[in-house]
């Protein structure tokens, strides 16, 4: 009997501890920086655990629309966040920009093509170009703006491979399965041994990251504290170390 009680307690205990659990849905490009910031936040607020859900921003807002229990949402573009505000999923007055980034064109470090301009993507030795899905992945929309500004969007269409998130684009290029891809500078820096940055893409809306409290959150005070913490010096130091700029 006692054994059963102990086993029961061991199952129930994590549930009791989960009372102070904060769920943060964040853009895939924030993965590494946010994991570190989460540890610092947990150290600053004892008894709090931060649980992350990383994916493309468009996928995350879709999950929130379907009622996913999320406290904080951090997007890689303004458009997705605005969609959330319009649908009353987000507390608009808590919305803050906390970081900025740069869209770059990358190629595999070994045996990748030498790309000096966006127009080089039309060359026959560039067979496949990876980019984020336009519908759900912000980096894909920035890429579209950039290529449209260079009048290359339509002619390059047959070469596109659309990925589920910016990290999948990075993986495709790092594995050498595609000759080129569009990611953020911070992503390229994580795999500096496998991918090389050809040039900043340019011609797109500024890449800024907004964060806000989700309307359905049951612990808004804690969620607000995390949103504010992102703009504090310790968090900004981590972001800067991973290559993010100030908004």
């Amino acid at each position: 009997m006692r054994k059963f009680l102990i086993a029961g307690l061991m199952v129930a205990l994590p549930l009791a501890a989960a009372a102070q659990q904060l769920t943060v849905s964040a853009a895939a490009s924030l993965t590494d920086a946010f994991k570190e910031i989460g540890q610092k936040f947990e150290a600053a607020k004892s008894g709090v655990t931060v649980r992350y859900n990383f994916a493309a921003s468009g996928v995350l807002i879709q999950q929130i629309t379907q009622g996913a229990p999320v406290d904080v949402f951090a997007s890689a573009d303004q458009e997705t966040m605005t969609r959330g505000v319009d649908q009353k999923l987000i507390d608009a007055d808590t919305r803050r920009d906390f970081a900025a980034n740069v869209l770059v064109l990358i190629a595999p470090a070994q045996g990748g093509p030498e790309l000096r301009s966006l127009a080089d993507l039309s060359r026959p030795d560039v067979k496949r170009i990876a980019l984020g899905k336009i519908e759900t992945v912000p980096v894909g929309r920035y890429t579209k703006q950039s290529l449209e500004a260079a009048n290359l969007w339509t002619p390059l269409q047959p070469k596109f491979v659309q990925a589920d998130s910016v990290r999948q684009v990075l993986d495709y290029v790092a594995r050498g399965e595609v000759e080129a891809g569009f990611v953020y500078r911070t992503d390229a820096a994580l795999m500096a041994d496998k991918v090389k940055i050809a040039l900043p893409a340019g011609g797109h809306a500024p890449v800024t990251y907004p964060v806000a409290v989700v309307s359905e959150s049951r612990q808004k005070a804690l969620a607000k504290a995390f949103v504010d913490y992102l703009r504090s010096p310790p968090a900004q130091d981590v972001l800067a170390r991973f290559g993010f700029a100030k908004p």
Partner: protein
Amino acid sequence: MPDLLPPSFDWFPLLLSLKVAAVATLLALVFGTALGWLFARVQFPGSSVLEAALMLPLVLPPTVIGYGILVALGRRSAVGGWLREHLDYTIIFSWHGAVVASALVALPLVLKSASAAFAGVDRTMEAAARTLRQSPWSVFVRVTLPLAWPGILAGTLLAYARAMGEFGASLMVAGSIPHQTQTLSMAIYDAVQAGQNDAALVLVVVTSVISIAVLVASNRFFSLR
């Protein structure tokens, strides 16, 4: 759905899924039958280990199959590198990749039922055929295969159903490129992710109707026999 199908309905994913599943099932049928016969009739060292290895796709998550294909056939692999160097061909991001993935997950279903079917064939029938001076190949085609056929066919239908629904491994290997490698299951996944619930619903209904039609047709076929 006010109309049965919206005018802009894209048939490509459905047609591609049918094509991929058909080719993959054909491959699974040929290799599954041959291997099934081998495991049922020939004892060789390591045969049970090899059979277990070939059954793995039934047990492992599709992501493992996808990763395996990427490692084995990707551009940085020996095979993938050679194909790219000499034939300028790569299986990654082409619908052939989805065929390989689907065939691998469908193979165990044919193999297992074929192996059981061959094991159940009355060996005295084969012996009788041999006394009538039939060659080994002739015995196989005219006696063994017809006797084992119902079992093989049942496995093949399951294999087709499995290949039709393949998602994880195909997505990793072939990507989801609209009008190139985007199968039905990927189109549904993309539509749900993008919040296009109407488009997803239409695809789900179309898939369900076709699957029911295939199952009803196969039941009819078997009850008529």
